[in-house]
């Protein structure tokens, strides 16, 4: 039976709930120094120091990932979304432009319209789409960690999910990172290190790069054996990003723990000044 009311995508929502905002002066290149398991627990954007603005992005992304419910602005309680409240990328972009205007943000003229202009479509699309796809990518990955699913679909294929005008050479990236080709297809066991190695973000689930059109699809046991990806009796053990453990801690303490872990991990190269991460 087909109905018009979806159930919440719990795993994708959990990946949003686990995030704490991380205002920072750091550039994208500098932020790569942060360990992936810390980055996936932080809501940040390069050179964005306004915590309120990051909270706004975080809330909008959560609404796109979970369009069926909304936190009522009056009661603060979660309730079903009503017509007129549905959130999508275009509407979120408008709201973020309005938030930036209200903050008095003006881009540097020489950077207007580019990725360093916080109000440009290019920048806003990258932030929103990357975050939405990360949540969905994690959700799909997490659902796939059930032992029965890993038994039935122990491998996955990297494939072009969306067309791009200028496509990256993923085959070279795949083989360069040690990935094997099976009849020209980029397939590996789900727990293979190749998935984090091809990722710009160091994570085992898509997106594997900014504005990437690549995705993953399951390869079932029989096909994986036939192709030689796995042996008949191979068992792929489940993995855990430990979000549930983090979610047992209340948000303020969670943010404190994230900041402590960042300082510990980055050492002298990092400092927090009035709640803003600065990387030397």
């Amino acid at each position, binding site marked *: *039976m*087909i*109905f*018009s*009311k*979806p*159930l*919440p*995508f*719990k*795993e*994708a929502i959990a990946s949003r709930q686990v995030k704490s905002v991380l205002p920072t002066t750091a550039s994208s290149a500098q932020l790569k120094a942060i360990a992936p398991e810390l980055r996936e627990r932080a809501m940040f954007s390069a050179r964005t120091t306004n915590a309120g603005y990051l909270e706004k992005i975080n809330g909008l992304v959560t609404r796109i*990932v*979970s*369009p*069926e419910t909304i936190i009522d602005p009056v009661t603060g309680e979660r309730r079903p*979304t*009503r*017509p*007129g409240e*549905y*959130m*999508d*990328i*275009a*509407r979120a*972009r*408008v709201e973020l*432009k*309005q938030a930036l205007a209200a903050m008095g943000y003006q881009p540097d003229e020489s950077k207007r319209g580019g990725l360093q202009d916080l109000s440009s*479509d290019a920048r806003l699309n990258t932030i929103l789409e990357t975050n939405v*796809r990360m949540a*969905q*990518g994690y*959700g*799909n990955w997490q*659902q*796939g960690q*059930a*032992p*029965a*699913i890993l*038994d*039935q*679909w122990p491998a996955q294929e990297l494939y072009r*999910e*969306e*067309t791009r005008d200028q496509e990256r050479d993923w085959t070279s990236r795949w083989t360069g990172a040690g990935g094997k080709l099976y009849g020209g297809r980029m397939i590996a066991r789900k727990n293979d290190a190749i998935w984090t190695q091809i990722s710009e973000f160091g994570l085992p689930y898509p997106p594997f790069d900014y504005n990437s*059109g690549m*995705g993953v*699809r*399951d390869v*079932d*046991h*029989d096909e994986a054996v036939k192709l030689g990806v796995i042996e008949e009796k191979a068992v792929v053990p489940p993995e855990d990003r430990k979000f549930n453990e983090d979610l047992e801690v209340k948000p303020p303490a969670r943010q404190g723990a994230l900041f402590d872990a960042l300082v510990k991990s980055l050492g002298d190269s990092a400092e927090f000044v009035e709640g803003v991460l600065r990387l030397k």
Partner: protein
Amino acid sequence: MLGIHIQTKDAATEVITDLEKDIEPDRVAPIIGRAGVNHIKGHLVSLDNSRANRLGGKRTHFYASAARSTNFQITSEGVVISINHVGVAQRYFGGTIRPVNAKRLTIPASAEAYGKRAGEFGKLEPVFGRNGIVGLRRPKHKTAGRTRQGRYTRGGEILFWLVKSATQAADKSVLPTEAELGAEVREQVGTYIERQKNRKR
């Protein structure tokens, strides 16, 4: 309408009744869910590859995005597959959309407007028709420049049409049929059970 919810209990019942006693139903539910999700995702990605927007604007990849939002949840009623994406149910079921936060709906009139909101274009001018405002266009610049042919004006392009409501016909091809979905689920559950049996022999 924002998304879709597919109850797969019926499709799987036949296979589940064939279960060996020593195969726990709890282990089969995720197979049912994942098989359904995979089949629907594949269908939506195929649609994304074959249905670019008619205006030729920058693609929003609506169907691929819907594919990524597809997931399953195990409930007391069985397995539910959901597509948590705004607009999918509207396409599948069809129906009339009326504005909620404004007086009119905006319909993109140009490739540039596709996937965008009118509020993203700064100040737009109304386009008047016989019964009032029918669209929004860029303001005209009176003396924008000069070519060999003479002076020309810039702007004035109509970006959006304004309508009181829009009615879409139902498009059942947005999803695979329930028979196709059921067949895929049965096949995957069947091979899974067969493998479990073989391992116990």
